[in-house]
């Protein structure tokens, strides 16, 4: 399998710049500093063609930022992303470049089916807008094209004359999927695409994703906080914590030979359909503020195996078994 997306050391910094008062005080020797959040910090990985890569982590770990950068809708601060060995977005020879011819090849499906569709447009216009603009279809073909797309995502053809508010959450998500697929992408970034749906509808949409993958030969980057969903759909899993990858491997290895203490905590925290009255033994503490991350390993204040080394030295991502990477000092 060939590599379709290669992500190299990408970083996204959000800076809250100083207001005028602070600048003024600084001018007279004040010490106000800009607040900097490293939403994504030196992340590298690659995605093979036809693969489903799952990204898990809790809120604020940078998984959505990562997805948006890969989809090309958010500029990078550092690093570069290439698509099929061709530079796509980021820094090439110290110059920021984005190759817009590749934009269409990577599409995104969002979490909230209520706010991601324009409420004043009919479904036919929502789905056909991008392909017409990019001259993939002509205006005359619009109707038959939309009918075909709706058919693909399991919606009735008469849906095209309706507005988004006339649909339920699951149906709206199908419209969002049809819109993303309308420009025939090769990679689809799904950002929490099933999180807002009811359980019985969630299964329908996951099945649709699996079908589309087979029929259209898609590659997915599947972002979710739900380990159960990721475990089911993904071939490989990336676990993120505070903007960094802590573990990355095949699904089997992450689930069965879990290495990083954070992944273990994530897995054990997932409620399962097990009726044995279990007493939850949660990990302690909260996710630290990304404005002010802890020293050393970001996870050490919550980790029960933490040593003195963890407090000072940041662990790097190392290969601990074939294709199994983990960033933890305990492996040394």
């Amino acid at each position: 399998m060939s590599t379709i997306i290669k992500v190299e050391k990408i970083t996204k910094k959000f800076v809250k710049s100083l207001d005028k008062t602070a600048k003024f005080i600084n001018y007279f020797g004040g010490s106000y500093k800009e607040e900097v959040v490293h939403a994504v910090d030196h992340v590298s990985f690659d995605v093979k063609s036809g693969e489903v890569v799952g990204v898990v982590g809790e809120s604020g770990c940078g998984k959505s930022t990562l997805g948006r950068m890969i989809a090309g809708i958010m500029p990078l601060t550092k690093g570069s992303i290439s698509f099929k060995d061709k530079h796509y977005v980021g820094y090439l020879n110290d110059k920021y470049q984005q190759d817009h011819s590749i934009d269409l090849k990577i599409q995104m499906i969002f979490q909230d089916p209520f706010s991601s569709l324009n409420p004043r447009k009919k479904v036919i216009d929502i789905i056909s807008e991008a392909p017409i603009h990019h001259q993939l279809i002509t205006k005359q073909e619009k109707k038959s094209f939309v009918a075909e797309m709706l058919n693909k995502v399991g919606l009735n053809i008469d849906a095209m004359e309706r507005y988004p508010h006339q649909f339920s959450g699951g149906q709206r998500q199908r419209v969002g999927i049809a819109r993303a697929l309308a420009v025939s992408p090769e990679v689809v970034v799904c950002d929490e695409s099933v999180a807002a749906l009811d359980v019985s509808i969630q299964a329908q949409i996951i099945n649709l994703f699996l079908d589309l993958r087979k029929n259209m030969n898609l590659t997915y980057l599947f972002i979710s906080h739900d380990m159960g969903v990721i475990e089911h759909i993904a071939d490989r899993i990336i676990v993120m914590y505070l903007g960094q990858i802590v573990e990355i491997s095949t699904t089997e290895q992450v689930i069965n030979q879990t290495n990083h203490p954070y992944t273990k905590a994530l897995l054990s925290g997932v409620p399962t359909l097990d009726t044995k009255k279990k007493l939850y033994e949660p990990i302690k503490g909260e996710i630290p503020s990304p404005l002010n991350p802890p020293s050393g390993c970001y996870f050490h204040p919550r980790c029960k195996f933490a040593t003195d080394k963890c407090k000072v030295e940041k662990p790097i991502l190392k290969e601990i078994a074939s294709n199994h990477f983990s960033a933890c000092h305990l492996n040394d």
Partner: protein
Amino acid sequence: MKPILEIENLKTYFFKKEGVVKAVDDISFHINPGEIVGLVGESGSGKTITGFSILGLIDSPGKIVSGNIRFKDMDLQKITPQQMQDIRGNRIAMIFQDPMMTLNPVLRIQTQMIETVKAHNKNISDQDAYTICRDTLGLVGISSPDERMKAYPHQFSGGMRQRVSIAIALLNKPDLIIADEPTTALDVTIQGQVIFEMQKLCKESGTSLLWVTHDLAVVAGITDRICVMYAGRIIEQGATDKIINDPVHPYTQGLIKSVPSKNKKGEKLHQIDGMVPSMFSLPKGCAFEQRCYLRAEQCKEVQPAETKHADGRLYRCLKVGEHS
């Protein structure tokens, strides 16, 4: 054992311009002292309205049309608003889904907590009220409660805020807590922590708990009994291990089978086709009929009554008995 809460044939309807929404339609269940009961259903199934009905929080155009809600020896339908006020937040407490909405953003935590204590105990001194609040805050796992008492809600993270609302619910040592999706807005590791605290606190104080959620997996591990709701009705209720391991109602079966961990990895998930019918135009017969694999002609016409299974659980389905 006499149940602490008993609901009989409760019907809560909303009278809207577009028609009558039967949000809760003829449900009956009970909670024993010290018991944890799960109320599970998809959005719009009426689980939240059930909780609101118990506490008398139904506003116009909604109305409790008929049915009894008995709490200990009181009929909550017949008592005066003043008596209801004494029960609410005191004997029955409620925890809501969104901790951002339940705490007042412009008041310090201590103001909000002491207010709750004083509302139900007029004679308590400020100092005593403060001590109770601080101790309860420590109980739910908030470190250095003395400092945190002075903080404002925005200074807390989501998980901490939910702990504060749990602490407020616990302040007057209620007999029953209604928790409406208390962990849905939280991260996985924080959800684990909150479930752990709630479990521990209920066990220690013998408080009964009604856990309202859409997530079967959350209630599977902690509840004694489960009620599954669909379109305003409880379609199956019974002991947790029976419901989870051997569901009889086609909807419960479908729900459990569609959980990813019950399916083979990478293969298609079991799915329930179709979607929940509009609450404005519920069919004459069983509301699940359109999506059911057991459906027959009679399901379209007859509303299934609550039937008792051989093992004691209750279900609403005409076809189940014929197959087992």
